[in-house]
C-alpha cells in the first residue's frame, strides 16, 4: 500500500479509503454545477478559486512538503499567462492543450533557472531569488513589449479551442474544473507515494535525508520545479478567462495572497490549497471593508499561523476528527497496539528461533578500511591518523571517552565531514570526501544517538524510506499509479513489515514513530538501516539511555546482522555492552587510536583502563569495571 503521510492515527479506515472517492465525488458535483443551477457569478468565482488553488498547490509542494519557502509562484503564473497570450495573439494559436503544454514547459524552465541558484544555500535564498523574480516581471515584460504589450498589457486574447471546437461559457468552466481535478489527483498520488515520504524526511531532517541516500539539493529542486507546473497551468486558464493580461495582474501583493492561502489551508496538505484559495478569493469579495485591511489581516494571519496552528484548516479538520473519535462520536478502528493481523508475524518470528539468520537473508557486507585518517578543526585535531578495519561478519566497536573523536570518525565515514587527510574505503570504493548522500548510496547506513525521525510518519512508512533510493519507483509511475508503482510500494511495505517483525516490533508498524519510546525508536531505526541493504552498518551510541530489556533486543538485532554477514561498526560508551558483543575493539583517546584488540585484550590493557578508570590497576571482572565506570550502564552482563 502507499505510505500515507497523514498525521492522524490509522483509525477511521473507512474515511481514509473513502476520502479520494469523496473528493472525486465533490469534484464531479462542482464539474456539473452549471447544470444544477450555478449562475454566471458563481461559475466565475469557482473558476477563480480553481486558478488560485492551482497556484497555491504548487507552493504547498515546495513549502509544505519540501520545506522551502518560494515567493515566486506569481512569476510562474505570469509565465503561463504570457506564453498563452503570446501564442494566441501573435501566432493565432488558440488550442488550449497546446498552450498548456507550452506554458508548463516555460514554467519548468523558469523553475530551473530560479531553483538551481536559489536552492544552493537553503534557508532564505530561494525565497529571495523567487521574490526577485516577481519584482522583475514588469521589467522583463517591458523589454519584450512587442510580444507582451509592456505596461499596457496584452489585449484581445481570443476564445480558446479544444480539438478545433470553441471553449466558451460552460464548456470553459468544465475544462477548468476538469484540469484542476486532474492536477489534484496527480498531486495526491505524488504525495501518497514514497516521494511524498521522502519530501517529509527532507523537510524535517536534511541530515536524515542524506543518510538515506537522498540528494537534498536535487530533491528540493525537483519539488520546487514540480510546484511550478500548476502555476503555469493556472496562468493559461487565467489568460483565456480574462482575455486581457497586464503586469498589474502579477503584482507582488499576489505573492502574499498565495502564501496566506497556503498557510490558511495548511501548507502540508493536499486539499487545503482549495480551502485556502476559496477563503482568500471569496473573503475580499464578500467583505467590503476587507480591502483596506487585507495586508494587515494577511500579515497577522501569517504570524498566528506560523506560531500556533501550523497545519492550517486541514490540520484543524484532522485534529477535530481525532477528537471526535476519542469522544466516541465517530466509530473508531481497533486501537493500534492490540492484537491485529501483525501479531501473526510476531508469532512466526518467535517460533523462528535459530532460523533468523536465514530469515534476514544474506547481507553483502564489505570491509570498511580507514587508513591514516585525520581531521583538523582549526588548530584542534579531532581524529589523529587513525587506521582501522571493520570486516563483514564481525562487530567492530569504537570506544573512548567523550570528545575522543568517535562520532567525528563516524561523520567522516558518512561524509558529513571531509577528511583533512587519509582515506576511508568501503570495499574498493573511496568514501573520503564524498557527499553524505553519495556515501549512503555507496552502502553506508547509520543510526543516530538521538534517533532522527520525522513527525507524522508511521513505522512501516519510515522503514520503507530506507528503500527510497535502492528500490526507486519513478515519479511518473507513482503519479500515474502504474503497475510498477503498486509492485514497488507493496514490496517496500512488505519488506518494512518483515524487518519490523524480525526485530520483534511488528506491533508498532502502524504507530507514529516519533511517539514511540526511545528503545523502540532505536529498533525502528535499525529496521530502516536494514531496509537499505547496506554494506556497512554504523550504530552511534545505540545503547545509551536504554533499559536492560531494550539493550537485550538491540544486542539480538546486531547479532542477527553479524550472522547474516553484515559489517557492523558500533560507537558506544557502554563498556560492558561492547565487551559482550564486539569481536574487535578500537579505543580512541583525544583523537588517536590507543589500543585495538579482542575484548579480552582490551580488558587487560593498562592504558585503556587508565583512560576509563583513572587508575592503572587492572580489573579482573566487568563488575569491578562497572563500579568505576563514569558512564552509567546497565546492570552487569555475563562476560563472554
Amino acid at each position, binding site marked *: 500500500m502507499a505510505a500515507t503521510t497523514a498525521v492522524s492515527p490509522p483509525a477511521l479506515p473507512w474515511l481514509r479509503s473513502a476520502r479520494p472517492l469523496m473528493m472525486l465525488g465533490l469534484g464531479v458535483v462542482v464539474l456539473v454545477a452549471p447544470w444544477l443551477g450555478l449562475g454566471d457569478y458563481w461559475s466565475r468565482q469557482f473558476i477563480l478559486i480553481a486558478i488560485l488553488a492551482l497556484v497555491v498547490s504548487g507552493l504547498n509542494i515546495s513549502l509544505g512538503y519540501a520545506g522551502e519557502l518560494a515567493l515566486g509562484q506569481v512569476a510562474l503564473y505570469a509565465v503561463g499567462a504570457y506564453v498563452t497570450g503570446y501564442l494566441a495573439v501573435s501566432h493565432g494559436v488558440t488550442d488550449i492543450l497546446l498552450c498548456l503544454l507550452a506554458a508548463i514547459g516555460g514554467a519548468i524552465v523558469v523553475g530551473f533557472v530560479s531553483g538551481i541558484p536559489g536552492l*544552493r*544555500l537553503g*534557508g532564505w535564498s530561494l525565497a529571495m531569488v523567487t521574490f526577485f523574480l516577481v519584482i*522583475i516581471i514588469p*521589467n522583463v515584460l517591458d523589454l519584450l513589449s512587442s510580444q507582451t504589450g509592456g505596461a499596457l498589457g496584452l489585449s484581445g486574447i481570443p476564445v480558446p479551442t479544444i480539438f478545433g471546437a470553441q471553449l466558451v461559457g460552460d464548456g470553459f468552466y468544465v475544462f477548468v474544473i476538469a484540469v484542476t481535478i486532474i492536477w489534484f489527483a496527480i498531486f495526491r498520488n505524488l504525495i501518497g507515494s514514497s516521494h511524498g515520504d521522502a519530501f517529509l524526511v527532507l523537510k524535517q531532517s536534511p541530515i536524515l535525508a542524506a543518510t538515506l541516500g537522498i540528494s537534498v539539493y536535487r530533491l528540493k529542486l525537483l519539488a520546487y520545479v514540480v510546484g511550478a507546473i500548476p502555476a503555469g497551468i493556472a496562468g493559461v486558464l487565467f489568460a483565456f478567462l480574462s482575455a486581457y493580461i497586464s503586469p498589474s495582474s502579477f503584482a507582488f501583493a499576489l505573492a502574499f495572497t498565495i502564501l496566506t492561502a497556503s498557510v490558511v489551508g495548511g501548507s502540508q496538505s493536499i486539499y487545503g490549497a482549495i480551502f485556502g484559495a476559496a477563503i482568500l478569493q471569496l473573503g475580499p469579495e464578500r467583505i467590503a471593508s476587507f480591502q483596506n485591511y*487585507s495586508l494587515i489581516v494577511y*500579515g*497577522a494571519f501569517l504570524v498566528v499561523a*506560523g506560531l500556533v496552528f501550523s497545519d492550517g484548516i486541514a490540520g484543524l479538520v484532522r485534529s477535530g476528527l481525532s477528537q471526535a473519535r476519542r469522544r466516541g462520536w465517530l466509530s473508531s478502528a481497533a486501537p493500534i497496539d492490540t492484537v491485529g493481523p501483525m501479531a501473526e508475524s510476531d508469532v512466526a518470528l518467535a517460533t523462528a528461533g535459530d532460523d533468523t539468520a536465514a530469515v534476514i537473508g544474506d547481507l553483502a557486507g564489505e570491509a570498511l578500511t580507514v587508513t591514516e585518517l585525520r581531521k583538523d578543526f582549526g588548530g584542534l585535531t579531532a581524529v589523529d591518523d587513525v587506521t582501522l578495519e571493520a570486516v563483514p561478519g564481525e562487530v567492530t566497536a569504537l570506544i573512548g571517552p567523550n570528545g575522543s573523536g568517535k562520532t567525528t570518525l563516524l561523520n567522516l565515514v558518512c561524509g558529513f565531514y571531509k577528511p583533512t587527510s587519509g582515506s576511508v574505503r568501503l570495499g574498493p570504493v573511496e568514501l573520503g570526501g564524498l557527499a553524505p548522500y553519495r556515501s549512503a548510496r555507496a552502502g553506508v547506513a547509520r543510526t543516530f544517538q538521538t534517533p532522527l525521525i520525522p513527525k507524522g510518519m508511521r513505522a512501516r512508512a519510515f522503514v520503507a524510506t530506507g528503500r527510497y533510493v535502492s528500490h526507486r519507483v519513478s515519479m511518473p509511475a507513482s503519479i500515474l499509479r502504474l503497475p510498477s508503482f503498486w509492485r514497488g510500494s507493496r514490496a517496500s511495505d512488505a519488506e518494512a513489515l518483515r524487518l519490523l517483525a524480525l526485530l520483534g516490533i511488528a506491533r508498532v508498524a502502524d504507530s507514529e514513530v516519533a511517539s514511540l519510546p526511545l528503545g523502540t525508536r532505536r529498533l525502528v531505526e535499525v529496521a530502516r538501516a536494514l531496509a537499505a541493504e547496506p554494506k556497512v552498518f554504523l550504530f552511534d551510541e545505540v545503547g545509551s539511555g536504554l533499559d536492560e530489556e531494550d539493550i537485550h533486543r538491540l544486542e539480538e538485532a546486531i547479532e542477527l546482522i553479524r550472522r547474516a554477514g553484515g559489517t557492523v561498526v558500533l560507537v558506544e560508551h557502554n563498556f560492558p555492552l561492547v565487551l559482550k558483543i564486539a569481536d574487535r575493539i578500537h579505543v580512541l583517546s583525544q583523537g588517536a587510536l590507543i589500543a585495538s584488540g579482542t575484548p579480552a585484550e582490551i580488558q587487560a590493557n593498562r592504558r585503556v583502563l587508565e583512560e576509563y578508570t583513572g587508575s592503572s590497576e587492572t580489573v579482573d571482572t566487568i563488575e569491578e569495571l562497572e563500579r568505576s565506570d563514569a558512564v552509567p550502564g546497565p546492570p552487569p552482563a555475563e562476560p563472554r
Partner: protein
Amino acid sequence: MTTLWSGLADGALYALVGVGYNIVLLASGVFNFANAQLIMLGTYLAYFAAVTLKLPLAPTVLIGAAAVALVGVVEERLAIRPLMGRRDSHATLITSVGVAVAIDGIVLRIWGSQPKAIPAPLSTKPLNLLGGTIEPTSLLLIVLVIVVGVGLHILSKKTMIGLGSLASAEDREAAMARGVNVRALAIGAFALAGLIAGAFGVVVGSGTYANPGLGDNLALFGFVAIAIGGSGSQIGSLIGGFATGIIYAEVSRYTNADWPQIVVFALFLLILLTRPRGLFGGAVERQV
C-alpha cells in the same frame, strides 16, 4: 563620478538593510525578513514627527529610534521567540514575512499609498566632490552607514557581547550552558536593529521619501548585499551593498530603466551559483 556618488548613496541603503539583517542573524541565527520594513517604518515616523508634529531634528530622530526599537522588540517577543528551539526551521520564515506584510498594511492604512516627502536635515545644495555632485544628506547617509557597519564589526569581534552573540547564533544550547543570556541577546539584537532602522528614518527618507513600496525593494537589495558580502559579515555587507548600488547606478546610466534590476538579479544568481557563501562569508544561517 556623479553616477558613482548616487550609486554609493543607494548602496548605503542596501548596506544598511544588510547590516540590520546581520545584527539579528549574528545574535540569534534568525533571518529577519521584516528588517527592511522597519527602515520603511522609520521613514514614516520621521515624516510624522518632522512634518505632522513639526518637531526639530533631534526629537524626530529620537522618537523614530525609540519607536522602531520597540516594534523590533515586539516582533521578537511575539513572532520569533516562541519558535526558537523548535525543530521545523521554516516557521520563522513565515512569521517574519507576516510581520513585514502587517507593517506594509499598517503603513498603507495610516498614510495611504502616496509617497510622503521628508525635509532634508542638511542643505539641499549639491556639493561638488571629486569631480561629481552629491547632496549633503546623501553623503551623510554614506558616512553614517559606514560608521555603523564598521562599528558593529568591531563590536562583534572584540567585545564580550559580540562574542556571546556569535556563540549563541552558532549553537544556542551550548551558549546557554556557558552562561550566555541567549534571550537577552536575541531581544537586544532586535532592539538594536530597530533602533538603527528608526534613527536612520530622516536621513533615508529625505532621499527616498516615505513610500509604501520601500520595504519590499530594500528587503530584496539588502539581501543581495549580504549574498554578495556573505551573511554574518558586517564589512561584507557594506561592500555588498555599495557594490550593488554602484552596479545599479552604472547600468541605469547606459541603458533604459528596465535593465538595472535584471542585471542585479543576474549578478545575484551568479553569486549564489559560484560563491554561495558570499565573497566574505562567515557565519551561516542555521541549517538544521
